[in-house]
């Protein structure tokens, strides 16, 4: 299937967010693709609050079926969550379960004033009542296939479709 240009989607997302994000918004990227995206947004939008990174592996709802991931990154939220406007960032929004886990983890750090969600792609297929306020593109991907965001050595983003989950790459 023909996939849109991830770089273009990223620019589109930045355009949507401009004006809705302030210097003390807490941007939190969900590993791994969400972090790459969050770094771009953070730089482009001039947010002074330090970027947060979330690995919601400890809050997944499928622990009993698939067990613990290998290669878990420690979540780092370097700002005070209580009372803050938080922007959660992920690459692909699909079932909504990852975002639910991320929100649960975020709440264990404190009570935010509000949480908004920005995603590069919303591929539908929601299994929970989760919605993104900022979306780069909406399109469907056949079920059973995985939509993956990649970053090359020069930092350029691209989208691909594959049959299996991506192995967690080291965060650069």
């Amino acid at each position: 299937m023909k996939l849109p240009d991830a770089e273009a989607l990223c620019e589109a997302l930045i355009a949507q967010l401009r004006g809705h994000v302030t210097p003390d918004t807490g941007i939190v990227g969900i590993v791994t693709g969400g972090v790459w995206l969050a770094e771009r947004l953070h730089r482009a939008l001039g947010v002074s609050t330090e970027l947060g990174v979330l690995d919601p592996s400890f809050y997944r709802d499928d622990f009993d079926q698939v067990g613990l991931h290998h290669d878990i990154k420690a979540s780092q939220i370097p700002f005070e969550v209580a009372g803050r406007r938080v922007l959660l960032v992920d690459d692909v929004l699909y079932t909504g379960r990852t975002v639910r886990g991320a929100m649960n983890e975020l709440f264990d750090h404190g009570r935010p004033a509000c949480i908004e969600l920005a995603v590069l792609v919303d591929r539908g297929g929601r299994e929970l009542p989760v919605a993104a306020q900022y979306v780069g593109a909406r399109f469907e991907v056949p079920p059973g296939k995985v939509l993956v965001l990649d970053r090359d050595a020069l930092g350029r983003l691209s989208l691909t479709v594959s049959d299996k989950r991506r192995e967690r790459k080291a965060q650069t």
Partner: protein
Amino acid sequence: MMARNPQLNDKGTLQHLLTVEGLPREILIHILDTAASFISVAERDVKKVPLLRGKSVFNLFFEPSTRTRTTFEIAAKRLSADVINLNIATSSSTKGETLLDTVDNLSAMHADMFVVRHAASGAAHLIAQHVGAQAHVINAGDGRHAHPTQGLLDSYTIRHYKRDFTRLSVAVVGDLLHSRVARSLVHALTTLGTPDVRAIGPKTLLPTAMEQLGVRVYHDMRAGLRDCDVVMMLRLQNERMKGALLPSAQEFFKSYGLTPEKLALAKPDAIVMHPGPMNRGVEIDSAVADGKQAVILPQVSFGIAVRMAVMSILAGN
């Protein structure tokens, strides 16, 4: 006769943690890496994650121990598990229920995980064989055989301060004969690629054929400490004086106690570890125990993270 490693289930993943010996390097690294991610959980206000919510962890301690049991309890609670503590006296006069009867009764209460400490080597293996795939067993110390979570937390500490196992000289000093901590640490270090692991002690306190575990044996502490990166001091128990193994604590301290002067023979940035509780003036001089090379207190928080890692990996397998 058992042929298959009883720690692994049919899928080849870890069902129980009974001993470090025989575990592939990848599993040890996975545990250490997972422990690292749990460290940050401890630094938050809400120190819990929901991984083991709804699961029951039974602490079966046939040998009394406050510190180890407490760290396992904290670790389980931080994973949101329900924890039940059972301290079972082992005096022969109270030998009513057999070990396996006790386990059966608890299994009937839907225990998901047993943390077992027992005075006899092999007790955790016996329980694991008995419960099979129905529950997970973590060995919290069996006789002088193994204390795998301690070996892992000691390895974690070493990795935290020294990074690369493949360049290290590590000395383990004292009563290795009776020490499950020493055995587990030796297995962990050799599996993780440590090229120079040394055992230092008098002949009466070193096990037979120790070299065959991949260890160099020294009876002269000064020679053994030379250029070491890590010095692990083992606890000496009072009973050793009674069994004609040692004449006195004072004589032991003279030859095998860690003093600043002996520590100076190791590398200048060498770290000093002790599994605790310490006998000051027997294994270790107060000056060293309170000195800047000692990393004894951080070992405690690493211990909670390592046990959280072990429990969550097992529970997910």
